[in-house]
């Protein structure tokens, strides 16, 4: 079984979705993939979800704009970056899908809507995918790299569009809102009783806002449903690669294996693996150290350090092997722990060269 390279994988893809557990440097890897693509002459865009401040500064996207900013540099292609603003993305989607005058404005002002846009689980994932679709449809980019929120369940972002549509299309709410249809009247009585009980638990104004939202939203479900399907089609498309980013630590590897399994359940295979921040594989050095005072001397300390770092690398390599076995023939890149943090374009360039190394 031969593995290709991550460079080859990215080179042949129009969309690269970076997924993986939190705290493994996923955003940096996503940005480095876009940068390296630009160096190879492509028009590349990276959508970041929650970049560290210094990285955002380096990319020139510290200000929320929700539109890609071009980063100038000495590469033959183009590099664009944007920091996702889930709320404005959702607002724009509502405005685009409105079917009557005043509808979007009424929705945007509703408190229940603001809760959906700000707090409903899966919304951020959905909006990352929505933004991806928008950029892809613009035709301005050869490759779009998306950083995803650190979700335990990778299906959250594949499934998010469908779940949101189902949520907006809730059968229960329809029963409550359209009581006039005679055939539904009996069911409706039960639904009304249900809402009354819910009101007792959480308070009437909360239920009132929700009902008002669904009344206003009426007519937009079809547009949302179509859009959700388009987003899902894009994720399942041939030119879309899923790059799993992890660190070689056991907890991150466990979570990555879980993510990979969920992806497969969703009909998506992991296309590539990037293992970030592993201890480099130093050669063994066997020394005949004298006992006594020299045992605590500078040479002994250097040797103790090498032994310690080698032990860490060996433990990590076993973890990586466990994960690599699970993803079939997908290419694997290893990025060693670097002497400095990655927080500028130069650091991203270094990182990108490791990710693309054959």
């Amino acid at each position, binding site marked *: 079984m031969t593995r290709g390279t991550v460079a080859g994988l990215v080179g042949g893809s129009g969309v690269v979705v970076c997924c993986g557990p939190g705290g493994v440097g996923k955003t940096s890897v996503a940005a480095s993939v876009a940068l390296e693509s630009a160096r190879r002459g492509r028009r590349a865009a990276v959508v970041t979800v929650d970049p560290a401040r210094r990285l955002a500064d380096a990319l020139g996207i510290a200000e929320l704009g929700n539109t890609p900013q071009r980063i100038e540099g000495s590469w033959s292609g183009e590099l664009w970056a944007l920091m996702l603003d889930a709320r404005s993305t959702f607002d724009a989607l509502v405005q685009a899908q409105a079917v009557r005058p005043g509808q979007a404005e009424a929705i945007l002002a509703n408190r229940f809507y603001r809760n959906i846009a700000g707090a409903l689980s899966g919304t951020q994932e959905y909006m990352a995918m929505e933004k991806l679709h928008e950029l892809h449809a613009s035709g301005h980019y050869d490759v779009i790299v998306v950083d995803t929120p650190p979700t335990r369940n990778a299906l959250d972002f594949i499934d998010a569009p469908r779940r949101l549509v189902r*949520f907006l299309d809730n059968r229960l709410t329809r029963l409550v809102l359209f009581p006039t249809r005679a055939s539904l009247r009996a069911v409706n009585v039960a639904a009304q009783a249900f809402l009354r009980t819910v009101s007792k638990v959480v308070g009437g104004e909360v239920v009132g806002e929700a009902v008002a939202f669904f009344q206003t939203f009426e007519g937009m479900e079809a547009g949302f449903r179509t859009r959700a399907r388009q987003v899902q089609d894009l994720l399942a498309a041939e030119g879309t690669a899923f790059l799993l980013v992890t660190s070689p630590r056991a907890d991150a590897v466990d979570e990555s294996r879980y993510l990979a399994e969920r992806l497969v359940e969703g009909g998506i295979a992991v296309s590539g693996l990037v293992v970030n921040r592993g201890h480099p594989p130093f050669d063994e050095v066997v020394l005949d150290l004298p006992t006594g005072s020299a045992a605590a001397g500078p040479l002994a300390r250097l040797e103790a350090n090498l032994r310690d*770092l080698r032990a860490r690398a060996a*433990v990590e390599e076993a973890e990586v092997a466990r994960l690599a076995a699970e993803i079939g023939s997908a290419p694997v890149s290893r990025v060693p722990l670097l002497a400095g943090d990655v927080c500028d374009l130069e650091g991203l360039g270094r990182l990108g060269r490791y990710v693309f190394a054959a």
Partner: protein
Amino acid sequence: MDPREFCARTGLVIVAGKGGVGKTTVAATLARLAAEEGLRALVVDLQGGDGLARTFGGPRLDYHDQQLWPPPGTGGGASGPPAGRVMGRSLTPDLALLEYLDDHGLRRIGRRLSRTGAADLVATAAPGIADIVLLGKVRQLEQQRRADVVVVDAPASGHALTFLGAPTTLLATVSTGPIRTQAEEARALLTDPRRCRVVLVTLAEETPVNETVQTAYALDDEVGVDLGPVVVNGLYPVIEDLGVDPGEAARSAGVALDPAQAATLAAAGELRAARQGLQGAQVARLAAELALPQVHLPLLPVASIGPDHLGELSRALADELQALTPVP
């Protein structure tokens, strides 16, 4: 500070931090330390993962208490004072909500909620409702005094703020009803320093330190919860003077060293010296930006933390606590 006194100071300790900083390990270490000190500890998992159970070498946690340490079936003589132990359980919003509705005579509503998917609807209408129900359950565990200390492995930090801020958020939205009462009770627990404190966990790296400082200020301002020491986890044990020239060091020790060996030793020394320098700078920055005592835990050279490592970590934690001066 005496470790036992530290563990027993409040009946509830909430361990919070960004994903990947070892929050679960720290929660487990705290519980193990409490047990070593003769206390009854209960660790509560809110994330539905099996990390906590694996750390103790036990089976996956569920909605019922199970003994994690000492391992069931070992030790425990008939005589002598009652020894410490760690029990563990998980809490999920769904089950906590069902239990809550059952307790309030709303069993049928609960069933319908979960069947129609309306639970999402309710949770969106009143964000924080799931968190309130979870906090209510945590409060119940604290009130029942089934353990001397309840250690909660909280959601990752952005979420921790949402989670612990839920009572305040909800009190602004919901003006009546049993959920409001529940939110008031949860807030009373969180803001009482004799009953509850939050221990933040971080790594000595740029982003986790930034997030820890932000979270600490937000928790203080928006929730008013008492903050315990910050745990800086995953530190390389420091080896001094790695910048020496290996060739020279070998000559003075009377050991033969070829150039390739010297280069390897130098490269490994440089890498660690650089990482130690970075971690030292981040520890100092954390101290400068956040006026909370710090306790440091080492990065063990193992794949995953198991029961044996937990003993090692709890001893390290005890030493660190001993060295802390008690907060007046």
